[in-house]
């Protein structure tokens, strides 16, 4: 892939073009799910009641965790530009840990809801709740794996020729953050 970086007709780095095309195809995935949620919800009643059984404080905590992880991710990218490998490693590690924290809190939240009988089969709100947050959590998991690969490379000092990948991983991570920015009010605040 490194060969590809040298060649570009438009001036935009090739990896970045690829990543943005990928994100462009991800928008309709979550867009389709959110569109379905919105229209089905507006077309029938009783959703606010179901929503009130969600654990709001855990979700709020998760919102902060994810927003902060976006900050550490972008700081990792800044560290690449400033050529500060220690800071890069530290921020990648922080992002990774925050991602894991998000998943742990999410798992805890799921456990609580299922314990109260709100399983995926408990009604249409719960179908969408588990579908939307589940698909999002899978994306977080994917981001964690990517960051882990980058972190290992950074620690073994083999990242140098591929440092632009931190930026690409960041684009993806921020996209996942943006999805949560919409899921949080859609599910918890209305």
């Amino acid at each position, binding site marked *: 892939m490194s060969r590809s970086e040298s060649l570009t007709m438009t001036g935009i780095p090739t990896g970045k073009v690829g990543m943005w095309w990928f994100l462009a195809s991800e*928008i*309709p995935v979550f*867009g*389709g799910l959110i*569109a379905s949620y919105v229209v089905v919800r507006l*077309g029938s009643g009783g959703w606010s009641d179901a929503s009130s059984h969600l654990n709001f404080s855990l979700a709020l905590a998760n919102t902060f965790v994810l927003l902060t992880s976006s*900050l550490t991710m972008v700081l990792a990218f800044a560290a690449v*530009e400033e050529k500060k490998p220690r800071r890069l490693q530290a921020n990648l590690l922080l992002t990774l840990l925050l991602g894991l924290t998000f998943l742990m809190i999410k798992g805890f939240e799921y456990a609580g809801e299922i314990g109260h009988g709100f399983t995926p089969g408990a009604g249409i709100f719960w179908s969408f709740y588990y579908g939307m947050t589940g698909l999002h959590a899978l994306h977080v998991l994917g981001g964690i794996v990517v960051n882990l690969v980058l972190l290992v490379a950074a620690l073994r000092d083999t990242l140098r020729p591929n440092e632009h990948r931190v930026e690409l991983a960041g684009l993806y991570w921020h996209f996942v953050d943006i999805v949560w920015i919409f899921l949080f*009010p859609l599910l918890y*605040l209305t």
Partner: protein
Amino acid sequence: MTSDAHRPNYFLVWLWLVGLVFLSIGASVFLSKGAAILLIFLVALVKAVLVLLNYMHLKFERPLLYALVIVPLLIVAILIFALFPDFVLHN
């Protein structure tokens, strides 16, 4: 890649994002339902744009990449619009 001179203050952006979360929670507590929903989604939109422009540094990029964000959103808008009669207005 962004040049150093242009780099946004990432920490300040983060403060804005956190502040906006509190704003939307406040809205859901203090405002009437309709106004709250409007404000909450406006805030979510602002947050998304903040992340896009600063963390994903779209504001330093070329039109092609803007198109890659806007066109899919338009397509989702078409989908929502066409789904309305069947699921919201059908009774």
